[in-house]
């Protein structure tokens, strides 16, 4: 026989559950800089990606449970490719995709057995940095439209604080990578190229703006 649980309690329990799952994972940060939108994640795996390409100028990043955000990533790629095929490539945008994610996460949060333990970022680079868009979608479907920089995952507040002290929208890629790495690691640790997964949506380029920065190139930037 089911017991009565107050809706406030139910929502709180679900939110706590999701938050706990997300806090266990490692964080990532995205910055809008001179050369584009830089996404930098703490990730020791070279094959299980947290940051990936969705469409020409749109990238996806997720923290929390890998299988859940990867499922969201693939749904996003499908959504974008179908939309581009049905209409045109120009008609695919980050805002509508972020809204779709928000719908799904919100729906799952209230109706399913368990909420998704993820936070995701949908970023779209523009020709001018003022036009860059970064949507931070939470486990319950809340969408935040971020400007400048944003941090997802465990210890997001302290990382954001560290990054906020030095952040400058005029940074080149190298500056951005170093600052993001320092903010993610904190004072006690230092990251090597293998500890990070870095990608950039390049501002001025051909059709596909998404590029990974890895291996020696990344090691050189970290100095």
């Amino acid at each position: 026989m089911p017991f009565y649980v107050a809706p406030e309690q139910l929502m709180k329990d679900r939110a706590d559950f999701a938050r706990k799952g997300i806090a266990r994972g490692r964080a990532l940060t995205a910055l809008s800089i001179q050369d584009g939108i830089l996404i930098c994640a703490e990730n020791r795996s070279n094959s299980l990606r947290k940051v990936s390409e969705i469409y020409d100028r749109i990238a996806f990043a997720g923290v929390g449970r890998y299988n859940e955000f990867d499922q969201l990533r693939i749904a996003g790629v499908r959504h974008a490719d179908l939309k581009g095929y049905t209409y045109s490539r120009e008609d695919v945008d980050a805002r509508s995709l972020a809204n779709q994610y928000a719908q799904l996460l919100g729906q799952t949060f209230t109706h399913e057995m368990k909420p998704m333990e993820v936070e995701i970022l949908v970023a779209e680079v523009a020709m001018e940095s003022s036009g860059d868009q970064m949507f931070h979608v939470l486990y319950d479907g809340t969408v935040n439209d971020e400007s400048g920089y944003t941090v997802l995952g465990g210890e997001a507040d302290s990382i954001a604080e560290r990054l906020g002290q030095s952040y400058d929208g005029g940074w080149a890629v190298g500056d951005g990578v170093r600052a993001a790495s320092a903010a993610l690691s904190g004072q006690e640790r230092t990251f090597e190229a293998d500890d990070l997964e870095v990608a950039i949506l390049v501002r001025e380029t051909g059709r596909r703006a998404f590029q990974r920065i890895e291996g020696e190139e990344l090691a050189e930037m970290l100095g």
Partner: protein
Amino acid sequence: MTLPLFEAGGDPGPNFAALLRSSGLAPPVPDAPATDLMISHATTVVAIRCQQGVVMAGDRRATAGHLISHRSIEKVFPADRYSGVAIAGAAGPAMEMVRLFQLQLEHYEKVEGKALSLDGKANQLGMMVRNNLPAAMQGFAVVPLFAGYDTSRGVGRLFQYDVTGGRYEEREYAVGGSGSLHAGTVIKLGYRSGADADEMIDLAVSALFRTAEEDAATGGPDLVRGIYPVVAVIGADGFERVVDTDVESRFRNLLASLENRGGDSQ
């Protein structure tokens, strides 16, 4: 449009065509012959191996019956960074096939996080041609050429198809479309194993020029309107289209050399 989500059993994986089918967006198969319709046909395309990789070229004419329906269509397209596709046959379905093929390669790459191998790409295209067979029987045949730079082997490779989706890898050159007989002969005589891209571009240009003289459905260079065949080189740096001014100067050189021989190109 809502987010496409699937149950584990019905998930289309990295296959874009399957995703289209499950989303109800796949194009319908024609169920009546196209004999009474005046549909546009795209014609002669060539691909030649060279030292750097592969040279691909195609003329710009589309015909419907005895009419020229378009004088500036393009038949050579990048399929992804390291490969290209050239089309001959019913223009509409061929364009659609190219668009789907390009999307399929990109979709796979994004979903899987890794590009398909060149053989994988060639097989994919073969499957698309085979799936078009019912339409081909109704008069909407599409016969592409596929060429690319195999990054794992470091060589250019090219593939020819038939309407059933049969995939044939060629070692030297491949031709397709109504003018393929003439274009093939010119290339056969001028082909030299290990020649560089520059020489093979000239050969492709010359083959298209000669073919346009013999085949009504193949367009020659249009010096008045400035319309020239599309020529591309696919090598270690990826698919690169040769700029129109370069193609134009190659044609002018060809014409000048013919004039020097007394004007008659027979």
